[in-house]
C-alpha cells in the first residue's frame, strides 16, 4: 500500500526550499516572498540612516514604497519608483525570475521573455500598504546574526545538509 511513494517522498533529507543565489546586499539588504507579496527593504541612496520598505502584491501587482515610518516615497509619481525596480531586480537574482513570477502569479511564469515578465510585475497601481510589518520582519531577520554562536551539538541539523556545489 506504500509502494507508490517515491524515493523523494521517503527521503529524510530531501531538499524542499531551493537554494538562493548570492547577490550584493548593499542596495537591497532584504528581499522576501511572504504574506502574499514580494517585499523588502531598500537602502536610501542619499541618507545612510534611511531605508525604504517596498512591496508588490501577488495577483494585482499593487505596489507601495514608503519609509519605515510610513512616509510615502517621493519617487512614486504614478509609476513605480527606483526602489521598486531595484527590489524586483534583486529578487530575480536571489530567487530566479521563474520563482518570483510564479509567486506574484504572473501569467506564463516559465516564459523565457524575462523583460516581459519583469514589466508585468511592475504594471500594477499604487496602493498604500503598512510598512511596519515588513520592517519588523527585516529587524527579526537581522537579529539572527546577533544570536551567540554555540558549540553544543545540534543533532537535528543532520536533516539539513548544506548542498549546492556545482562549479
Amino acid at each position: 500500500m506504500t509502494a507508490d511513494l517515491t524515493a523523494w517522498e521517503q527521503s529524510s533529507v530531501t531538499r524542499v526550499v531551493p537554494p538562493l543565489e548570492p547577490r550584493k546586499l548593499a542596495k537591497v539588504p532584504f528581499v522576501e516572498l511572504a504574506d502574499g507579496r514580494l517585499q523588502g527593504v531598500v537602502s536610501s541612496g542619499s541618507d545612510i540612516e534611511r531605508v525604504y520598505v517596498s512591496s508588490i502584491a501577488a495577483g494585482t501587482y499593487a505596489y507601495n514604497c514608503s519609509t519605515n515610518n510610513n512616509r510615502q516615497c517621493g519617487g512614486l509619481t504614478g509609476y513605480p519608483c527606483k526602489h521598486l525596480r531595484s527590489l524586483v531586480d534583486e529578487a530575480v537574482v536571489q530567487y530566479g525570475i521563474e520563482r518570483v513570477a510564479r509567486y506574484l502569479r504572473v501569467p506564463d511564469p516559465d516564459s523565457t521573455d524575462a523583460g516581459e515578465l519583469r514589466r508585468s510585475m511592475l504594471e500594477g497601481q499604487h496602493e498604500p500598504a503598512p510598512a511596519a510589518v515588513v520592517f519588523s520582519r527585516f529587524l527579526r531577520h537581522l537579529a539572527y546574526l546577533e544570536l551567540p554562536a554555540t558549540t553544543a551539538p545540534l543533532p537535528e541539523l543532520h536533516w539539513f545538509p548544506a548542498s549546492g556545489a556545482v562549479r
Partner: protein
Amino acid sequence: MLAMQLAALAEDPPGAAEALELVTAFDEALANGLGRLDERGTQAIIGLAGAVAATPLGDRAGEAAEKVAAGSVAGEHLTALAGARAALLGAVHDALLTHLDDSLGRTRAPWPPAPAEGSAAGAGPTAQAAAGPGSTAQTAAAVGGAGAAMGNLLVGCRSWLHELAITGWRGVGHDLASAADQAIEAVLAEPGLRRLAVLTDGLAGELRASSPVAAMEKVPVRRWADLWTRAVLLSEPDWLGTPEPAELVSGRLLILGVDVHEHATVVQAQVHAVLESAGGEARVVRAAVSAGKVDTIVGPAIWSLLEGYPVLTGALAGGRSVEITDMPLLGGGDLVWQEDRAAPQGAADPFATARVMLAGALAPATPPLDRHPARIAEPVFLEGYTTAKTGDRISLDGHDLAVAVDRLPSSGPLTPKLMATSTACVGLLRWDAGRWLLQPLAIQATVKKQPVEEHTGAWAQGPTDPKVVRSLARAGDAVTVLRERAGRLLRR
C-alpha cells in the same frame, strides 16, 4: 572499506523494511491530518501503536491510537504517537548501525547506563557541568525556576505542532505555516532551547515556502514527519531533565573532515576526527560549532560567521592536528568545543589518519533519544574504486555505492566533477530512503596528470580558489553589510 565489506553492507538488516512500512503509513496519515482519519489512516496509527505494544510505551501509545481514531485528539496523545514513531525509527537505526559495525568490523562503545537513582549528583561531570557557565547545552538549565520559565516557552511551539498534526501537511497554508513565528522567536532567545529552535525554524521556513501545500505535486512526507516528531519530543518539558553524561578528555585530535549543515537561519560545521589519547587509545569523535545566519549568506560566506573559532577553522583550512586538554566529551561522541582548551599543532593528513587509525578507533554510541537513520554519519575510507562520470556512484570490485553528491556544500571546493575524477575518498556513510550513501569529505584525484587533494573544509578561513575569491569580492561581504545594517537599525 573493502569490496567484501561493501557487499555485506548492501544486505538489508531483517525487520527494517517492515518497520519502515509502518512508519510510512503513519506519515501518510499525518500528511492528511490526524483530525479526520479515513479507514487507511486509522489502520496506520493502530499499526504504529501495535508495533510498540510490547515496550514501556505500549499502553500510552495504544490508548492514544484509540482516542485519535475516535476523533478526540489531545496533546498527550500526539506526544505518545510521536514517541512510538521515534522508537520505531530508533530500532531501525540500531539495526542499521549494528549491521554497519558487523559489515565493517567496527567496535562501538556501549551507551553509558543511567546513573543509579540518588547518586546522580556525584556521578562525575554531566553535559551540564562540563559545558561550564553560560553553556548553551540543551540540558544546561533544567533546574528550578529556569526550567519552569522554559516550560512556558515550549507551550507555543507545542500547540503549533499539535495544530499541524490535526490539520495535516496537505491542509497547511500561509497562516498556519507562519502561526508559530512568535513562539519560535521566543524559543530562539533561550540558548538552552537552541535545538528545538533551529528545528522548528527550519520546518516553519519550509512550510512557508511550500504554502499552500495542497498545490504541491508531492509532499515530503517522511521528512516533515521526522521533523515534526523530533520537535514534539524536544518540546516536552521532560526532555530538559535528561543531561547527557560527559567526561573530560585530552589528546591529539586528528581531523578526518567537516560536514556542513545549514538552513535559512543557521549553519553548523561538524568536524569528524580521531582522538588519540596519551595512552595511544584512539576513538572517533565529533566537534560542532554553529551560528545564526540569514538566507542571503550562502556559499563560502558562511565561514565568516564561525570566525570566533580560529583554532578549529584553522585546523580545517591548514590541514593541521589540534592538541586538546580537558575538553568535555559527551556520551554520544561529541566534544563540547572550547577554543581555550585547544592548541594548533603540525600538519596532519586526513588520508593517513583514515588509512591508519580509523579501522581500530572506538566508535561512539548514539544517545538513545537521537537514534534515527538520518543521524547515522559513520566516517569511512575508500580507495581503488571506479567512479561514474557524474560522480554520483562509485564501484569497488563490482559492488556499487551511491554518492550523495547533493551533500557537497557550496562552501567548499569539493564538487561532483572532482568526485568523478577521484581515486581515494574520506567520507561519511549515510542511510536515506532505503539505501546507503557515501558523503565525501575529502578526496584525492588526478587532474591534468597532477595529484590534487580537496576537502570540504579547505575554505574554512576563506576561499583559496582565485575565481571564487574574485566572485566573493564582486558580491561584497554579505556578513559585513548586514552587520552594518543591524548595528544601525536594530538598536534604535
